[in-house]
């Protein structure tokens, strides 16, 4: 019975939906996290009777045909790259991107990863690093004895050094942009890798055309909307339940059919 399999595809899709929703809820407070959405597509249709075939010798034409669908599949899990709220932290090395762009980060493997989590700190040698200790590209070294660091909206890093009146420029931050941000490959730790779907990274400075601006002393909160996720969870759970009712109904019909011979 096709209905049993159709209902099973529905249950499998909703199960995946719940997995995606639970990951969103779990990352509600992850800096720079972008919520994901499971998207469904209907599966192939079986043409039992083609539209337009003649249904009798008299030449009557079937107007619509019988097409039977075989259920649903999870087409893709799409990342919604909407801006998260900017939260003030007061920390000098928290930098949020207001608009498009990613910070390039050098991974221990030599690869470049990209992140929007700008909760940086300084390594023992004075280099600007992510929370995991990976160097932010291009490497910026805050000199020892710096009493203050200021980062402008366009990414210029200036340090005030004790004994000097004027702050000195110690580096320039860069941002990377992608044609299709949704196509980046997430690898955990708030990091993403370039993929063939995202297109190559285009480097540029903040506030230039197509790039967002930087905000020192802020972090970007995740863009997960708790109420929206919980509502989606309820919908997914009910949808799962309804698909299970189809299984029951199909099972009852099969039982009825098998009891026919008495």
């Amino acid at each position, binding site marked *: 019975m*096709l*209905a*049993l399999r*159709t*209902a099973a*595809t*529905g249950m499998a*899709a*909703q199960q995946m939906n719940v997995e995606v929703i639970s990951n969103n809820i779990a990352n509600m407070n992850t800096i720079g996290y972008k919520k994901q959405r499971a*998207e*469904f*597509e*209907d*599966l*192939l*249709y079986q*043409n*039992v*009777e083609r*539209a*337009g075939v003649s249904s009798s010798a008299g030449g009557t034409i*079937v*107007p*619509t*045909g*019988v*097409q*039977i*669908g075989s*259920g649903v599949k999870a087409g893709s899990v*799409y990342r*919604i790259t*909407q801006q998260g709220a900017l939260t003030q932290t007061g920390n000098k090395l928290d930098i949020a991107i207001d608009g*498009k762009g990613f910070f390039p980060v050098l991974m221990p493997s030599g690869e470049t990863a990209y992140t929007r989590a700008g909760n940086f700190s300084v390594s023992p040698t004075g280099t600007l690093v992510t929370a995991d200790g990976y160097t932010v590209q291009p490497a910026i070294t805050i000199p020892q004895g710096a009493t203050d660091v200021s980062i402008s909206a366009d990414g210029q890093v200036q340090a005030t050094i004790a004994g000097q009146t004027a702050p000195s420029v110690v580096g320039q931050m860069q941002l990377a942009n992608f*044609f*299709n941000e*949704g196509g980046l490959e997430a690898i955990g730790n708030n990091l993403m890798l370039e993929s*063939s779907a*995202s*297109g*190559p990274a*285009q480097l540029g400075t903040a506030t230039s*055309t*197509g790039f967002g601006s930087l905000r020192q002393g802020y972090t970007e909160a995740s863009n997960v909307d708790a109420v929206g996720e919980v509502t989606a969870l309820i*919908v*997914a759970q009910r*949808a799962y339940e*309804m*698909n299970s*009712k*189809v299984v029951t*109904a*199909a099972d*009852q*019909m099969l039982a*009825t*059919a098998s*009891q*026919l011979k*008495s």
Partner: protein
Amino acid sequence: MNNALYVGLSRQETLQRALEIAANNIANADTAGFKLESLLVQTEPGSAPSTPDARPVAYVLDHGVTRDFTQGAMEGTGNPYDLSVEGLGFFQIQTANGMRYTRDGRFTVDNKNQLVTKAGDPVMDAGGRPIVLDPTKPEPAIAQDGTISQGGTPGAKLGVYRFPDLAQLQKVGGNLFEAPAAMTPTVAADGVVRQGTVEKSNVQPVLEITNLIEISRAYERVAQMMSQQNDLSSQAISRLGKAA
């Protein structure tokens, strides 16, 4: 004498098919742009009766699937690449197998900066050309008439395509519809596109569950009728057998 069994069987076959369609509706209760389907059945006169006093037997036959093209609920997502058509009309998608049509406007941008579906197939503008966005400009703003502007500069216009007869559309999976070669769509001048919204499936879960109950009960009733008919014939055989 066995006609009642065959009539019952014809009904059971259509009920099974109706269940398959209801199962597909429920499985797609959360699929964007999905349109509810239901089975059309009609009476099918059987072959001419062999004896002059016998009445003709009418079977039941499914002859088509009808689709309810009413608008699904609009869910606001705020995502600039989520689009929906309000009222009649479809987006035109260029697939490897030719032009297809959809009401699922959850688009994205590919690595060539084209506006594409999640399957990577380009979305067509009102002139039937792919839509290329400018990556150096801010996210697109799409007006109600489908005009896409980036940074205040209007560019391509999304096409909203309409058909003279929706019943001739076939579903091909992937939320796409295929039109027969003979039916060409027209670009609607008054098509309304809504940015930041997704059209949900128009399946009403409560109605579908009721439908499901109806189908399984009807199936049981027919089965009961068939088993009564079976009893009747076995009784007839035993009684007539005694008389002889």
